[in-house]
């Protein structure tokens, strides 16, 4: 088991390494213009300069804070509402069409409305991130409730558990592993909306950094900014996976 995982990791690293080597080679041979496709080494240099001279880490911190604020607000609302939708037919029937509708609205299309409502400050950014996360997560949570095996509810019922205790003692722990997984996935989506939120009249954050670099055609900096987001996403994802494995170790034989 451990050996297979290590093999997978090695294969992944080799594939990545090969890709970057080929990319570097293509750039070094002058087959592409650095303006369109700078070499990985140039991107790394840009990344280092941005960290040391342009306080990239501070911008990354600002972005992370925004993502987490919006995500936590979304999750704090989505979990109870989703559980109510999943366990109560009337609540589910009342909210689902509405949420399904809003879920399909493209977040960028709501930027003007968001500015009218919240101005161009921090609220707009949080609102846009929340918008992209809440409506997705709430439906996933409702679905998780539906997927709790009927047997669990019935065991609790025959042992005399009232409805709300069945939710708390049985449905919630039963759905928790998939809930955490769904949160991990929606947190990733939240990052994808960050750029849209930070392009709108921002003066900080990774989206702002990328957008600024684009205005001056600093392609290595644009790519460095994108890579910074990718690295943060990868690290967060891996961290949650590790926690998931630890919290829900009882699922493994």
């Amino acid at each position, binding site marked *: 088991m451990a050996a297979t995982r290590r093999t997978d990791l090695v294969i992944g690293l080799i594939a990545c390494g090969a890709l970057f080597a080929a990319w570097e080679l293509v750039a070094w041979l002058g087959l592409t213009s650095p303006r369109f496709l700078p070499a990985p080494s140039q991107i790394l240099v840009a990344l280092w300069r941005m960290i040391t001279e342009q306080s990239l880490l501070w911008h990354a911190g600002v972005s992370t804070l925004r993502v987490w604020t919006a995500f936590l607000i979304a999750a704090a609302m989505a979990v109870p509402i989703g559980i109510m939708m999943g366990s109560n037919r009337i609540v589910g029937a009342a909210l689902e069409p509405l949420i399904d509708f809003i879920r399909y609205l493209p977040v960028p299309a709501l930027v003007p409305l968001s500015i009218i409502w919240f101005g161009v400050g921090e609220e707009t950014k949080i609102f846009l991130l929340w918008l992209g996360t809440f409506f997705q997560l709430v439906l996933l949570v409702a679905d998780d409730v539906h997927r709790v095996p009927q047997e669990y509810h019935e065991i609790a019922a*025959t042992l005399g558990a009232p409805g709300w205790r069945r939710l708390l*003692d*049985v449905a919630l722990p039963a759905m928790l592993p998939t809930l955490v997984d769904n949160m991990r996935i929606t947190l990733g989506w939240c990052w994808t909306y960050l750029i849209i939120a930070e392009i709108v009249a921002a003066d900080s954050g990774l989206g702002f950094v990328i957008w600024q670099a684009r205005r001056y055609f600093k392609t290595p900096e644009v790519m460095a900014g994108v890579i910074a987001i990718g690295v943060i996403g990868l690290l967060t994802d891996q961290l949650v996976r590790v926690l998931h494995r630890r919290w829900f170790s009882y699922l493994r034989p």
Partner: protein
Amino acid sequence: MTYLTFEQVTKTFQSTAGPIEVVAPFDLTVARGELVVFLGPSGCGKTTLMRMVGGLETPSSGRILLEGTPLTRPDHRRGMVFQSYSSFPWLTVAENVAYGMRYRRDLSAGAKADRAQHYLAVVGLSDFASAYPSRISGGMRQRVAIARTLAAGSEILLMDEPFGALDAQRRETLQLELHKLQEEDARTIIFVTHDVEEAAFLADRVILFTRRPARILAEVEVSRRLGSRRTLATRDSQDFFALRTELLAQVRATAVEEAAA
């Protein structure tokens, strides 16, 4: 007074294609401490009947009486053992057993702990008290579920093909254990299965069902023919073979009837 009585019980489910009659008017009495096996083809309505005893379904008409009182809602006096998802994966074996008493206010915390210990020992799982269900065998998981209903204080165990997913060896072991347990503890058990051999081996009485809607095709007093004690030797006896052949013939007759329909 009779213990458990079905009086003209029927069940009709509504579907988009119209009403489906699952249980035809059904009458039966079960004595306290009796092990009754409901044997019949899949989907014949035997499970629905058992679920009505558990209070998980309500009869469309008729009623089910326990010591003269009509059964309506589920309570801990009737405990279910399912074939799959029979225990909670996030609780240890001991916690699963203790869960049976979670909503009982008449027991102190100490009494609950003692009972959990006791029934863990009864099903032979004391050594696995702190293991999680994913790390024990399927047979052990079913024992956890049985211990949970016993600890809960269920007088009637409602078992829905509980050994259906186990291999032949474990199945036989658990059948023997269940029999021994019932002899010592004298609980009433309704056991649903489509396995003829399992029915013949376990039952005091086998109720053979027709295909849907559930009706009694035949009633066989197994205890009168095999005695109330069952051992591995029972399985090899002439009487057991005769009984099994007889039941099989009946089951085949319903299968033929079904194919013709």
